[in-house]
């Protein structure tokens, strides 16, 4: 079941009589309990899309259906109540400077009319879960960036939201803190059964935590689907940000030294990634397989491997037919 359904969303910014189109015809569907990544380069409209999902940014047209309700057409009163079920973790955390860590975390509960004592108790428990027990009475300005982020996560989780939105959660963190926060996001996702949408420009974040990815380019969505599918396609297409460009340079010089060999790009995903697929497919065949470059990465939804091989020999065609059945996807380059 999808918790969030976006259809034909268009957003533009108006300044005097000049309008800049920021998002155009965005369709998006987010499964309940999944982690979705919104990726793209800076200025692609990622943050605007995220802000539109809880209507901090009003769209020009299109619908945003959250948990069965079209939030673009409800009264501001209803929107206010709905927003309490969507937690937001802003890029620069936006904590209340005048409130202590404890009051920051408890604030969303107090706002929705909870009993003060109970709210503080739950805030304490939440702070404990996020390792903030020592800092309850500190003010945001006294916290490190990582601590501020955890307060912001605690504040977003305290109301038991169905959905949390994270804007560039790792952009200000060092690699160690990044790993920690990504683990935390995965834990929150499974423990609190909350759907997560992460805006990021770091494809590594997408690989490590996202089930699905929506990729934006100049305000349009150019890909939406499973994470491994995205990376399989960009590997085969030889995307700029991939290793494949470098691999190909190596490969071309290599194929020059062994004429007659065809170059094959292979993508493995899931179970077969760790199996001896090349051996299995080449059994009893007269082929020579030359491994040029390969790597295996641990994606959130399973191991993902890419491999560049040179193939020659009289049974090459049969070998490729067998191979095509075993791998996730492949492409014959030459």
């Amino acid at each position: 079941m999808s918790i969030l359904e976006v259809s034909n969303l268009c957003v533009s910014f108006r300044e005097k009589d000049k309008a800049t189109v920021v998002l155009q015809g965005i369709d998006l569907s987010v499964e309940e309990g999944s982690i979705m990544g919104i990726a793209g380069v800076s200025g692609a409209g990622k943050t605007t899309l995220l802000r539109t999902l809880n209507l901090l940014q009003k769209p020009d047209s299109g619908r945003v259906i959250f948990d069965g309700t079209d939030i673009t057409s409800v009264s501001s009163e209803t929107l206010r109540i709905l927003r309490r079920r969507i937690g937001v973790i802003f890029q620069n955390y936006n904590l209340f400077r005048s409130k202590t860590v404890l009051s920051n975390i408890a604030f969303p509960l107090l706002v929705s009319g909870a009993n003060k004592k109970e709210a503080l108790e739950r805030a304490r428990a939440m702070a404990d879960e996020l390792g903030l027990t020592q800092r309850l009475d500190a003010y945001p300005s006294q916290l490190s960036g990582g601590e501020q982020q955890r307060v912001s996560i605690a504040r977003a989780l305290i109301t038991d939201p169905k959905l949390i939105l994270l804007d560039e959660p790792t952009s200000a963190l060092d690699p160690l803190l990044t790993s920690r926060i990504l683990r935390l996001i995965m834990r929150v996702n499974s423990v609190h059964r909350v759907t997560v949408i992460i805006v990021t420009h770091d494809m590594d974040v997408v690989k490590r935590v996202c089930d699905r990815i929506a990729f934006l380019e100049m305000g349009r969505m150019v890909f939406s689907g499973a994470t491994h599918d995205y990376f399989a396609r960009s590997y085969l297409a030889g995307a700029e940000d991939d290793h494949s460009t470098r691999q190909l340079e190596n490969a071309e010089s290599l194929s020059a030294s062994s004429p007659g060999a065809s170059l094959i790009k292979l993508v493995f995903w899931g179970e077969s990634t760790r199996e001896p697929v090349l051996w299995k497919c080449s059994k009893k065949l007269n082929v020579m397989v030359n491994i040029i470059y390969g790597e295996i990465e641990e994606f959130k939804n399973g191991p993902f491997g890419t491999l560049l091989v040179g193939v020659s020999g009289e049974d090459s065609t049969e070998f490729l037919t067998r191979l095509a059945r075993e791998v996730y996807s492949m492409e014959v380059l030459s």
Partner: protein
Amino acid sequence: MISELVRATLESLYMIFLSGFLSIVIGMPLGILLYSFSDSRRFITLYRVMDLSVNVFRSIPFIILILLLIPVTKQVTGTIIGPNAAVFNLTVAASPFFARLTENALNTLPRGIVDSAQAIGVTYRQFVLSVLIPETLPDHILNVSLLLINLVTYTAIAGAVGAGGLGQLAINYGYYRFQWDVVLYSVIILVLISQIIQLVGTRVAKVLRK
């Protein structure tokens, strides 16, 4: 002479703090409205009207404003001289001033904090009371010092047209009777009052700025 000085000082303090209090009570909500309306499409006309009135009131020199207000002052306080009449004039002059100061302070609230509050789903009332004012409180404290110090000056001006207080003392005894020591003492006391107000304001703001 000392008893005269003490009486005048007390009168001045009475005028400064009472009109200061009233200006805050009137000006602060006006400032909050200005802040809220400036951002809303529905109330933008209302904002422009309020914005203009604040500017008009602020651009009239205080001494002229007192003269213009004479009929109203008489209606409201029953007299046009003495501390109470002055408090009325001072409040009329200082409320728009404080409204503008408040609006400016509220405008320093980062957009991100407003987003944060909105995403949490606060009502307008909760936003004003739990986010807007607490988050900008140090600025409001500094504004209050600024207001009160301005009122010290205004009160002295009002003294020239019969309000009483240190301003009137300085003019009547000092300027008209050439008792320059009275002018000197009055000025010293006025400076002291201003210094104390500023010092307290800065201290409190510093403590509140987290």
